[in-house]
């Protein structure tokens, strides 16, 4: 076996130390090693966006990032979006607007949308559609997803992903 490597991931504000094979993908480190199963694997070929998480504040497809590449990075997953029992405004809006059917794409959609709103707090419909080009949904036809993102943008606090207190 190849030499394992020590990595430290700050996931949703908490520090996790892992000893991993270099070939371990970030999505598997999150799901299998750390239990953050809200991050889904859809295509496994960097096309569908179901595995989208934030790495140092930027949306990335975690099926195409090695865990070792994320060493020392701040990661936010869907589990880090709600805080104190309060859904994130994007989660609220997806719920209210029926922005999901089976829900498989939803965590990735919400993480991509959160990154979009952080950069552009008042997007047009066109900008939302462009901003979500990396995320595929097989159920909704996108209409209500776009609506949810536009509605969330009108809500205060939609542009920040909550970061709980750091605990070692």
């Amino acid at each position, binding site marked *: 076996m190849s030499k394992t490597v020590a990595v430290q991931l700050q996931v949703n504000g908490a520090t996790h130390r892992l000893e991993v094979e270099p070939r371990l993908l970030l999505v598997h480190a999150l799901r299998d090693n750390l239990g953050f199963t809200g991050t889904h694997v859809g295509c496994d070929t960097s096309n569908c966006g179901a595995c989208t998480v934030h790495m140092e504040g930027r949306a990335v497809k975690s099926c195409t*990032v090695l865990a070792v*590449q994320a060493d020392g990075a701040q990661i936010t997953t869907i589990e880090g979006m709600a805080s104190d029992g309060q859904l994130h405004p994007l989660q609220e809006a997806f719920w209210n607007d029926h922005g999901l059917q089976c829900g498989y794409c939803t965590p990735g959609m919400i993480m991509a949308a959160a990154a979009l709103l952080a950069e552009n707090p008042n997007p047009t419909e066109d900008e939302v559609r462009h901003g979500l080009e*990396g995320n595929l949904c097989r159920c909704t036809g996108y209409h209500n997803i776009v609506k949810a993102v536009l509605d969330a943008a009108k809500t205060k606090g939609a542009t920040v992903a909550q970061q709980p207190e750091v605990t070692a």
Partner: protein
Amino acid sequence: MIPAEFDYTAPESLDAAIKALADGGEDAKLLAGGHSLLPLMKLRLAAPALLVDLRKVPGLHGIEREDGSWRIGAMTPHTDLEHSPQLGIFAKAAGTIADPQVRNRGTVGGSLAHGDPASDLPAVLLAADGSVTVQGPGGQRAISAGELFRDYMETAIEPTEVLTEVRIPSLDGWGFGYEKFNRRSEDWAMVAVSALVKQTGDICEEVRVGLTNMGSVPLRAGAVEEALRGKPLSAESIASAAEQAAEGTDPPADLNASTDYKRHLARVLCRRALGQAAGLT
């Protein structure tokens, strides 16, 4: 899909990266954003024994103006190019790469070193008359865009060399246009055309046209350039010049487009890109 086993190192200096690459021999590979290499490794089309990650090497990020040209660090992600309108056609082309997540990881250095003729930035570098700087055990050298792309996914960069920066002339006063045709935003270009035009009044002083995915390497549409250089620019002269966009090319057919269709696209996209560059649309 899990890549085959490999060893991993993330050196903290350029010298250490060059040494790790040399020591690793022919099975060692550099890792930048990983958005070309990791998909290949997951499909087991590539199985390097050692990955030398450039992420901790200082000085490989950022965009600066220096001596009338732009200096872009190899590890600068596409997103940062996209949000740098001062880069003109480079910013525009970078913004068409796949989707936001891919642009957040993929780097300009990785894209040029990979040398895929269907990728967006190689032909833009060629049209812009840019160059790359590489450093290896034997020191530093510059490689012009015209010499960089040798064959399909084959560049003039030695396996022991690291691409450290990209240089593009500032192109102040040039108009530009970039036209890419694909079916979905995440698809590579079936064909794309980059056009750069410098005009005085309506006279075309200088013109450069780059072709993406029209052969095994990015190409210049020399006949189009020839037809317009020194001539008045109008919708008619551009349309007539653009008819020669596919001259001398023999693009291989692929899943998305036949050879004839690609040649047709080159002509249409060339006309549109030149129209934009000349401020006619």
